[in-house]
């Protein structure tokens, strides 16, 4: 169990070497080790302190076009050996597939890039607690209608990771992620409502202030008091920038190689088709400095591009592929093993207010719940909460409704995307306005 014996690089080299000796044709592994602290304050008192200390080794082996994988937290020599043995044992029973194996050697990333991914947070627990208390206090003091709290949390994580494979590729890097969040409850004669806000960043100095996060949480909560159902109707729906990202995430899910080769996607055979209006471009920026999704190679060591348009002027350019799914489809890997890295969605130039004005009347959605999406057909139906808008102005909060359509139609029916980007996380997207959606309510 001891991690003291080997550093990550040595552990990786030892594992690859041992796998070769055990008869693996190829092997690859990822290792990570990290520490973190989570502190929650509630009602202006410390509620929980959690210390995290994680380590994980994941290894995949390939032999005679078969594969097996195994993982463990045990990075001792003995632990690594038994993990490799377990993977080799599995590879005896799986079926052969010519598409298995490492990504092609000539695609391995050449030179490590400094992408500004690691900023250890020097705050100690007392300082983190103080930040959480200030955050919650700002929310509570904002209004007497903030009557209860689920607390404010401060989280910090910092770790190192290694990816290595039997082509001789090995990368080692450090990364960090920090966040502050707050969730409060408001109440009046109409009942209770809860909402939250958060910020996250690799660099704690770039986080919004604790007070601002608390204040936004309080304002969002108060705005929901008195929410009601509206009658079922067809209407224009504006997804605010926080929830608009989910539409991009469904899109990416539908063009992933795994879904495509299994014919389990509503985006099948859409390469070269106009799947979005002409004003929409979705680009991947894997080298963006300091961004949460940045990396100079993908999960198989393949060099990531600095920029790639997945959708260019509405037209789908390519799927999202790792080496296995690329080979299944007779295509080249798009360096997306492990997912997409930092998406930016283009905008049509309007602010939030301008979008509301242009919409005139319709529904502004600020929260979605449930997962009623059929990825084979694109049928979409989710629970929603938000605000009814008339004459470009918010009228009253709305809840206990659903928004429904088919994703293929919904993407075509996008009429505007705001410049009000939500910069948190790895997708940057403004509010999205979609016409002709069905709202179910009373």
């Amino acid at each position: 169990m001891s991690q003291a014996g080997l550093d990550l690089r040595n552990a990786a080299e030892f594992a690859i070497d041992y796998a070769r000796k055990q008869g693996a044709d190829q092997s690859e592994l990822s290792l990570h080790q990290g520490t973190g602290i989570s502190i929650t304050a509630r009602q202006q008192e410390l509620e929980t302190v959690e210390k995290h200390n994680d380590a994980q080794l994941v290894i995949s082996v390939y032999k005679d076009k078969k594969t097996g994988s195994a993982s463990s937290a045990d990075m001792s020599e003995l632990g690594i050996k038994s993990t490799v043995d377990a993977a080799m044992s599995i590879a005896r029973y799986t079926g052969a597939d010519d598409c298995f194996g490492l990504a092609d050697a000539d695609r391995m990333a050449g030179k490590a890039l400094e992408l500004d991914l690691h900023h250890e947070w020097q705050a100690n627990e007392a300082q983190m607690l103080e930040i959480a208390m200030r955050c919650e206090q700002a929310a509570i003091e904002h209004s007497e209608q903030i009557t209860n709290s689920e607390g404010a949390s401060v989280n910090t994580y910092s770790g190192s990771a290694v990816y290595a494979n039997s082509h001789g590729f090995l990368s080692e890097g450090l990364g960090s992620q920090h966040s502050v969040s707050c969730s409060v409850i408001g109440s009046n004669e109409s009942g209770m409502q809860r909402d939250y806000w958060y910020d996250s960043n690799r660099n704690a100095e770039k986080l919004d202030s604790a007070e601002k996060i608390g204040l936004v949480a309080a304002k969002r909560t108060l705005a929901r008091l008195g929410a009601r159902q509206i009658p079922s109707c067809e209407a224009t729906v504006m997804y605010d920038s926080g929830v608009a990202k989910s539409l991009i995430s469904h899109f990416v899910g539908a063009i992933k190689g795994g879904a495509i080769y299994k014919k389990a996607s509503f985006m099948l055979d859409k390469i070269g088709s106009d799947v979005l209006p002409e004003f929409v471009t979705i680009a991947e920026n894997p080298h963006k400095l300091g961004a949460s999704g940045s990396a100079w190679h993908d999960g198989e060591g393949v060099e990531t591009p600095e920029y790639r348009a997945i959708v260019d002027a509405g037209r789908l350019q390519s799927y999202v592929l790792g080496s296995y799914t690329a080979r299944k489809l007779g295509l080249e890997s798009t360096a997306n093993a492990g997912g997409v890295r930092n998406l930016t969605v283009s905008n049509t130039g309007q602010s939030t207010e301008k979008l509301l004005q242009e919409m005139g009347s319709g529904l502004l959605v600020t929260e979605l719940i449930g997962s009623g999406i059929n990825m084979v057909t694109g049928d979409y139906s989710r629970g929603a909460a938000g605000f009814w808008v008339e004459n470009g102005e918010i009228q009253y909060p709305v809840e206990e409704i659903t928004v429904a359509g088919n994703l293929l139609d919904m993407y075509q029916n996008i009429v505007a995307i705001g410049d009000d980007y939500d910069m948190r996380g790895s997708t940057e997207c403004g509010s999205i306005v979609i016409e002709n959606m069905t709202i179910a309510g009373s």
Partner: protein
Amino acid sequence: MNQDHLSIAQATLLEPSGLSDTHLQQLMHKLTNVDGSDFADLYFQYSKHESWSLDEGQVKTGSFNIDQGVGLRSIVGEKTAFAYSEDLNASAILAAADVVSAIGRQGQNVTSQDLWRPQIIKPLYSELDPVAALDDASKVAILEQADRAARDHDPRVKEVMASLSGVYEVVLIVTSDGRQIPDVRPLVRLNVSVIVEQNGKRERGSMGGGGRHSFDYFDTAIIEHYSHEAVRQALVSLEAIDSPAGTMEVVLGSGWPGILLHEAVGHGLEGDFNRKGTSAFSGRIGEKVASELCTVVDDGTIANRRGSLSVDDEGNQTKDTVLIENGILKGYMQDEHNARLMGMDITGNGRRESFAHLPMPRMTNTYMHAGQHDPEEIIKSVKNGLYAVNFGGGQVDITSGKFVFSSSEAYLIEDGKITAPVKGATLIGNGPEAMQTISMVGNDMSLDSGVGVCGKDGQSVPVGVGQPTLKMDALTVGGVQL
């Protein structure tokens, strides 16, 4: 038999790194050596997980994982300090204990135990390691059989994706009040999903199940049932028309649709939310929160069920806890911490995803007792409505009480008859209000097949649900057809 569990737990978790009772005493001293310490525990866990998956007619991937470690927790009033160690050597665990004890001022030693009393609790499942008990070739054969059963069932089946997973867990819980509780927990699951195609139109269907069994639970009859059921659902979906949108009478089938109870009432009755007063059900014990036809329980004591536990993750025996009786709210689901702070009884609902996570009140198997009506009679009573029999996931906003759950197989009811299948739609309601509109409850109570996973605060645990066929007089159906 419990003695077996204790020896398995000690052999798996303590003996390899030479941990003795003296070490445990030392650890517990550190955890309780805090001013005002109320409770502390150690959660030793070994977990072995194996999974295999098939597509394109062959088992392509398999993975194997071993995790072990110990979680250390100390509670002072409403404050909790927590750390864990993946290293089970005494020095590493003691270092983690130092981190935990730094939470409060050092005080005088609270009562600390020299000897732990092993708890005798009757196990609800076998102590067999399902991963080791069956050879790999036979596991692969289960998936291949599922693939064949689906493809042979209908030529429109174009793709079959199946997965098989087995978990073997050994835990040992050591508490500051002098208990030492072992548990040995198997868990298996098989899932089959298919893609069918007809005239260029594709649809999906899926079915699965399992429980705290070994893999021999998946005999030919069960494998074929899952495969045929996945195909049937996919073929029904091929014919589905747009779902209606709006508020209407909704009949929910028996079994898995019990996810209604999990979302609409279950989460809202977990002790932590109610202690903090953040649930739509807070402070409402004794009030009528559902129609008088509704009796809802959380029962962790059903043998071999996916959601069952002989003891919870705090070493307390699970119970059959009445949450709602004839419509009246009777009680909450509690763990140690929240029960103590609320002055209520522990219900054995303290659960955690692993040693690296803090326990909290969680559901086990949540279901509604059977009622009087023949299910057919319930359908006949509906003029225009929806009959929903299969669901995907759900979610709830604890504070406002708004819950959703997404149907994957549903039909129109017209003039008391089930007619056209409709596409999946999300159903949405307010927990306490929706439960009041239940006007008929069937005599066909059944539990789900054993696939539930519940997420809370980023922690996943296996759960079960169940219910009889029931009718809600008004629920909002999130279709597209106005």
